[in-house]
């Protein structure tokens, strides 16, 4: 990982790029820096903290934020007194490891790579230039990013909601949406930033949680765009928890009094003028490409679009204009975290295909000495107590802790170290293990979350099994948080060491666990997502079988003529189908269905019912791409009058009823209601696209779109603008007052809708009515039952984590993409399919995979086969199996087990225990604590 680096030039082509990089000096040796923070504590130079949006101060030597990777300090030379005035060097004087390098120099690095992934991110819109909001002058006008920091426990106010003018807790906060988005008058960002509606709701909800007193929150918005998975439910929850939503775009903010209270004037929907005071106003600022990203894109020679986002095609959503360079995240266009993460995996997939021939060629395996066996030998524990410079030793009495450790049972050897993690100490630990015949090691230092792997490797170098190791966290969870009480910190450290030693004496060696991988994939569903996933794997050399229920490949894309950017779908689709059929590594099974499956990551066995009879397939991974479809409504005369159609049926009807002068689109038909409390995401864009197409061909026709919130997110907003420019009439309706479609006596249609602006009912004569009906997943419950996958209340499959693992299931080796996950446009389905293939390739690219051996263990003698463990396991890692003469017995599947121990805690017979976290090992710590 190269930080503080900038790409200065690039040369070559796909497969063989030379990238020139300028590395700025950090002035801190990352090998030596232990992230203790002593330097920052002693540094006398303060400056504004950028991470906290300037709401707090940082030092000239700093880490940008506590979770920074690498967690190493850096000197800001512009602020450093030594660099500016020639003397100080306090950091150097106090650094316990001699890590300060004032003579650090700029470096030029040249890298030879095959692919490049561009993820240069975004810049938040700066509202300083908007005169009417007076952001720079009024202290209680904040940007949403500033407010985000105020809400953060690690922020300038430790999460307490206060207003800057007087540090008082606000009673009323307003959010103004679309600041720097959907605006061509006051800025140049005509697009929607896609994420601000959601984050404003989130900020309002958290603010209410954090506030000590009752807090009134109001969000002023134009269209509430909660189009993501489960977002609409969050919006509904916010409304029920008292967040006030007002549909109005605020023109200006003025001061109400001397204390900084602010006044907003706005018009309600019915045209009534109101004036309301707020203690704090948050500007929900939009996203822009950062100027640095634009410059970097120019250096890479990749094309940008009119808004200076990287230009891509709908059918190739992460490929830039230059072969071998891929893009992910907001550099390509405004989007949220789940979408950015998916694109990142998709970009990795494209790079993986391009570099497939050289996969694994630069890998080197580390070798360890043979593991010693100890049999029944008594524990001989070595305890290493770390001073961590002065981080531990400066607060707790390390010699006293070490002395105390010597008195504990089974402790054979104790040592104090200045830095237990330093290279020379590692070597000393290996020597001590050998010299004193140690068979368990305890390190009392920082946290196992960062340092356990390092020490486990060290003891492996001495021939010890890595699980004969335990840490006592006496820094992060002791001296750092009890720094004012040296005695208490020392006593607590002793207790923690005693607990660690008690547990260590019961630790056992655990053998490595790896499973062979069957290097092929099963893809369920032959739509665009399924085919893309299969191709993405086959192009990397991993065979794939597509199981498709219907008689043809293509899925719901067969109905689409063009994407919203105008790309023709059918030629693309036929080419994709041809590629799939012709690929030597792809087998297509049409009119086939998965009926049963067993196994686990790397080793699945799936039974498929085909026309020719049942077939069994062995495969290493599963990709679920079962798709979805538009629902058939029972309202608005659909199915009763031939002039009422849904989705792309309209195109057929336009031909059939030529000369139709008036077309009405109705949105949210079956979406965002009680039965389906979700937004179908693609309907607004589709109807607007269709409306524009009609207007372009027949400008004289009347086209109406009846909608609830216009959700043309991202650059789709421009299409909405275009539709209005072309004269498409948009009328908003509410769920409580839905439009009515009626047949007149002459057999024509009329649509009656209440217009909230005119405050009256309109009667629209319609020749055609087209319904944007809800998108539903195809049947998911069978596949969910077969592979033990989670589905949500609306029957969409549930990913393991919306943001962190958006294309994976909780069970290993099973991935998700396309409409089965949530309604989405073609480009997003393709990106998600590539992402699923990318994640699947992390399994398929290895002959065997190492899995954590810290898994459940079933005692078949104690098990009564009640099946509670099977029920509680979220990973399908335990099942009931017939044991001859005994009935059903639980059996664990180590490769699927995550080691959470839910089964062990639930087992009424105590028949299940967890390796490395056995009941007895945990109880040993518990008993040693008081």
């Amino acid at each position, binding site marked *: 990982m190269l930080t503080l680096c900038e790409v200065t030039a690039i040369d070559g082509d796909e497969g063989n790029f030379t990238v020139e990089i300028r590395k700025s000096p950090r002035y801190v040796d990352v090998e030596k820096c232990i*992230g203790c*923070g002593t330097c920052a504590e002693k540094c006398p130079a303060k400056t504004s903290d950028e991470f906290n949006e300037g709401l707090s101060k940082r030092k000239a030597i700093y880490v940008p934020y*506590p*979770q920074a990777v690498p*967690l190493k300090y850096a000197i800001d030379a512009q602020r450093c007194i030594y660099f500016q005035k020639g003397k100080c060097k306090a950091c150097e004087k106090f650094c316990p490891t001699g890590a300060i390098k004032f003579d650090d120099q700029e470096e030029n690095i040249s890298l030879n790579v095959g692919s490049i992934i561009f993820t240069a991110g975004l810049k938040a819109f700066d509202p300083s230039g908007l005169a009417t909001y007076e952001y720079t002058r009024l202290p209680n006008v904040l940007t949403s990013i500033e407010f985000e920091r105020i809400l953060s426990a*690690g922020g300038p106010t*430790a999460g307490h909601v206060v207003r800057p003018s007087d540090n008082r807790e606000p009673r009323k906060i307003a959010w103004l949406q679309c600041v720097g988005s959907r605006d061509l008058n006051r800025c140049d960002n005509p697009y929607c930033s896609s994420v601000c509606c959601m984050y404003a709701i989130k900020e309002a909800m958290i603010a209410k949680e954090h506030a000590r007193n009752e807090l009134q929150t109001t969000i002023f918005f134009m269209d509430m765009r909660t189009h993501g998975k489960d977002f609409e439910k969050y919006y509904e929850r916010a409304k029920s928890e008292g967040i006030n939503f007002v549909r109005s775009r605020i023109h200006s903010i003025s001061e109400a009094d001397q204390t900084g209270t602010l006044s907003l004037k706005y018009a309600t929907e019915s045209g009534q003028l109101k004036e309301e005071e707020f203690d704090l106003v948050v500007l929900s600022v939009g996203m822009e490409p950062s100027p640095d990203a634009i410059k970097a894109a120019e250096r890479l020679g990749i094309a940008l679009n009119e808004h200076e986002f990287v230009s891509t095609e709908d059918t190739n959503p992460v490929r830039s204009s230059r072969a071998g360079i891929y893009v992910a995240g907001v550099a390509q266009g405004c989007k949220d975290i789940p979408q950015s993460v998916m694109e990142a995996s998709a970009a990795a997939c494209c790079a993986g295909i391009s570099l497939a021939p050289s996969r694994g060629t630069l890998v080197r395996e580390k070798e360890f000495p043979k593991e010693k066996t100890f049999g029944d030998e008594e524990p001989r524990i070595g305890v290493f107590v770390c001073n961590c410079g002065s981080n531990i030793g400066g607060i707790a009495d390390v010699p006293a802790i070490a002395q105390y450790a010597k008195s504990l049972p089974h402790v054979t050897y104790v040592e104090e170290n200045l830095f237990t993690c330093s290279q020379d100490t590692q070597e000393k630990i290996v020597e001590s293990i050998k010299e004193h015949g140690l068979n368990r090691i305890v390190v009392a230092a920082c*946290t*196992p*979350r*960062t340092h356990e792997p390092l020490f486990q490797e060290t003891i492996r170098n001495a021939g010890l099994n890595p699980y004969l190791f335990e840490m006592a*966290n006496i*820094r*992060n*969870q*002791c001296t*750092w*948080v*009890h*720094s*004012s*009480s040296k005695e*208490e*910190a020392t*006593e*607590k450290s002793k*207790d*923690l060491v005693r*607990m660690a030693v008690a547990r260590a004496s019961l630790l056992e060696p655990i053998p490595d666990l790896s499973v062979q991988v069957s290097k092929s994939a099963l893809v369920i569903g032959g739509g665009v997502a399924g085919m893309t996933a299969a191709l993405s794997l086959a192009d990397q050399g991993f065979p794939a079988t597509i199981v498709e229920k219907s008689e043809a490949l293509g899925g719901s894309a067969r109905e689409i003529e063009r994407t919203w950017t105008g790309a023709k779908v059918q030629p693309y689709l036929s080419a994709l189908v041809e590629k799939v059929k012709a690929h030597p590594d792809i087998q297509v099974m049409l009119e086939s269905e998965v009926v049963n499956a067993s196994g686990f990551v790397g080793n699945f066995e799936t039974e498929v019912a085909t026309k020719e009879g049942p077939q069994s397939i062995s495969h290493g991974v599963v990709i679920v791409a079962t798709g979805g479809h538009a629902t058939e409504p029972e309202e608005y005369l659909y199915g009763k009058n031939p002039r009422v159609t849904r989705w792309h049926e309209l195109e057929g009807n336009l031909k059939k009823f030529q000369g139709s002068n008036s077309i009405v689109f109705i949105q949210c038909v079956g979406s965002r209601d009680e039965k389906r409390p979700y937004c179908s995401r693609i309907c607004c864009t589709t109807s607007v696209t269709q409306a524009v197409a009609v207007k372009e061909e027949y400008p004289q026709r009347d086209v109406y779109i009846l909608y609830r919130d216009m959700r043309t997110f991202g650059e789709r907003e421009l299409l909405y603008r275009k539709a209005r420019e072309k004269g498409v009439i948009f009328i908003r309706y509410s769920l409580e007052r839905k439009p009515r479609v009626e047949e007149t006596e002459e057999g024509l249609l009329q649509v009656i809708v209440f217009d909230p602006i005119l405050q009256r009912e309109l009667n629209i004569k319609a020749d055609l009515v087209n319904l944007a009906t809800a998108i539903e997943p195809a049947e998911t419950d069978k596949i969910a039952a077969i592979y033990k996958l989670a589905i949500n209340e609306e029957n969409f499959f549930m990913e393991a984590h919306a943001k962190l693992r958006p294309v994976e299931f909780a069970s290993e080796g099973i991935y998700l993409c396309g409409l089965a996950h949530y309604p989405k446009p073609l480009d997003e389905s393709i990106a998600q399919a590539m992402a699923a293939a990318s994640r699947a390739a992390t399994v398929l690219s290895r002959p065997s995979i190492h899995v954590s051996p*810290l898994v459940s263990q079933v005692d078949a003698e104690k098990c009564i086969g009640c099946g509670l463990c099977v029920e*509680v396991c979220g990973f399908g890692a335990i099942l009931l199996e017939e044991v001859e003469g005994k009935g059903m017995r639980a059996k664990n599947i180590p490769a699927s087990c*995550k*080691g*959470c*121990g*839910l089964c*062990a*805690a639930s087992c009424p017979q105590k028949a299940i225990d*967890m390796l490395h*976290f056995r*009941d007895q090992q*945990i*109880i040993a*710590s*518990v*008993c040693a*604590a*008081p």
Partner: protein
Amino acid sequence: MTDYEPKIIAFLCNWCAYAGADLAGVSRLQYPANLRTVRVMCSGRVDPVFIIKALREGSDGVLVSG
């Protein structure tokens, strides 16, 4: 009773609460030194027996966080 300091056993999930406790350290957030942490791989691992055991062995309180 003013000098009374309870001893609290905390079962912390490795992936969230334990990481949070580490982060409190990185951020130098100060809190009373009464807590003794037991790291578990999931708060679901905490068997009621552990809690009873902790209280019987002399802990005054138990925190399960995950």
